[in-house]
């Protein structure tokens, strides 16, 4: 399923694009900024620290890694982003930074006997998570298999009948599997992607350099790259966001499913769970023995995708 050759070949081009983007905005005096991000950072941090807050994107450029930001830095960053989004979409955004809830490790389960392949989840996810509409991006792929067949290579995602389910087929939605032993986070050269203590694999979009090694490393095609500037109509944009989740992204960064971090960190179900008309999608705390997810794992036959790779997904498929 992976597409690694292509990915590495294109890496160089993409890097250059990214730098171009960073040096585009003329009003901010970008001309003087040399493209090497980290040496620039080290050298110029002190100088830039003196300049007062404005919405110029040099601040974006020198912004620290999310995990290393102080409380004030986070607050400033959130304010800067809110101003940026307000300028772009004319709306007031909430950019949450809710921390993991103690004692939680999120898991997900999908009843493949129940799923009818209707793709309601796909579009609810796009709306909730501010995925670009054009070019199109969808975190969830619904694979259709012939009965009795489990070969991923022979599945189709383009099926389009009048009604689902179709006779002789079954459906298997695939999205980020939030692996406990995630290969994607290990290959990131700048650690712009990592696993949070509650098990969610996240990306700091402002730290991502767009090299796409993580995409090559993911055996589930669970990551997506912004080849162009994301386009979301202002009337469709979701203003309830999280820094590590559905806040608007930019060109040349990688993004992915975060179990709707902006929802689950405040106790809500992910949007795909909420919208599934057949109730095939289950979500909860693996550390709570009474949660739906724990009950499923302990009482039903479950399997995980490509288990042989030892990625240890926290995304289970089950037969009820």
């Amino acid at each position, binding site marked *: 399923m992976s597409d690694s050759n292509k990915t590495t070949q294109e890496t160089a081009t993409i890097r250059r694009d990214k730098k171009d983007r960073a040096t585009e905005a003329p009003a901010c005096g970008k001309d003087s900024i040399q493209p090497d991000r980290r040496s620039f950072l080290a050298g110029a941090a002190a100088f830039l620290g003196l300049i007062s807050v404005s919405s110029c994107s040099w601040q974006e450029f020198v912004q620290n890694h999310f995990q290393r930001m102080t409380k004030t830095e986070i607050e400033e960053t959130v304010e800067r982003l809110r101003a940026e989004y307000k300028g772009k979409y004319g709306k007031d955004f909430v950019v949450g930074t809710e921390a993991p809830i103690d004692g939680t490790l999120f898991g997900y389960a999908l009843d493949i006997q129940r799923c*009818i392949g209707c793709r309601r989840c796909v579009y609810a996810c796009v709306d909730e998570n501010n995925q670009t509409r054009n070019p199109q991006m969808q975190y969830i792929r619904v694979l259709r298999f012939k009965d009795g067949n489990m070969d991923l290579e022979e599945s189709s995602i*383009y099926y*389009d009948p009048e009604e*689902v389910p179709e006779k*002789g087929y079954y459906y298997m939605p695939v999205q980020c599997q939030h692996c406990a032993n995630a290969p994607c986070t290990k290959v990131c050269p700048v650690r712009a992607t990592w696993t949070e203590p509650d098990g969610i694999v996240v990306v700091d979009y402002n730290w991502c350099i767009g090299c796409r090694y993580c995409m090559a490393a993911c055996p589930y095609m669970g990551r997506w790259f912004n080849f162009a500037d994301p386009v979301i109509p202002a009337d469709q944009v979701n203003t309830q966001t999280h820094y590590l989740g559905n806040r608007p992204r930019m060109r040349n960064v990688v993004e992915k499913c975060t179990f709707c971090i902006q929802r689950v960190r405040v106790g*809500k179900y992910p949007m795909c769970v909420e919208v599934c008309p057949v109730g095939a999608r289950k979500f909860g705390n693996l550390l*709570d023995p009474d949660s739906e997810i724990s009950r499923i794992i302990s009482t039903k*036959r479950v399997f995980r995708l490509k288990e042989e790779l030892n990625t240890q997904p926290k995304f289970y498929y089950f037969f009820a």
Partner: protein
Amino acid sequence: MNGHIGSLKIALLVMALALLGACLMPGTGPVQAQAPQESQSEESGVAVSGQEFPVPLVPLPKTITPCRACHGPEKDFPVQFKRHEDLLVHKNIRLAHGGVRVWCLDCHHPDNRNFLLPLSDGKPIDFEHSYLLCGKCHGTKYRDWRNGIHGKRTGSWNGEKQYFLCVSCHNPHLPKFKPLEPMPPPAKPWTPKETQAKH
């Protein structure tokens, strides 16, 4: 994974057969698949007090309630325990549940139509607790539903939840889940090579 494939096959066979048998009359039956969302947004957070599960209230059609208006004790109206197809007042109800084995009065109380048949405790089940009735014949599914495995819950994964009733998804008279129109497939140049070959 071979074991899974076997059971999948069986499951899909069941599903496919049931699909064939599904005849759907628009506007018939108490609740269709989309109804729960409506009733939920109307009365979000409203749960029947004293209930074991937080379930939405699904009001029956006003035109047909209270059942006692026609099926009252004073009406000398013959109770028909035998299966027959020529219903008049209830001609909108087409029963396709469990083949010819299940009849109206396997579920509805013959002497008090405002209620469903009782559990072994002898107390008739009201319509709000219809899941108890379903549980009599579908014990495993009912247990899964109670455990949040079958069916659906919305709300908060670590707090208050709303449960969808069995009848929110299954019309008790035509319980086969209603097929849906799928949302559009993804745009074509979406993934490279392999999937395209299939078309």
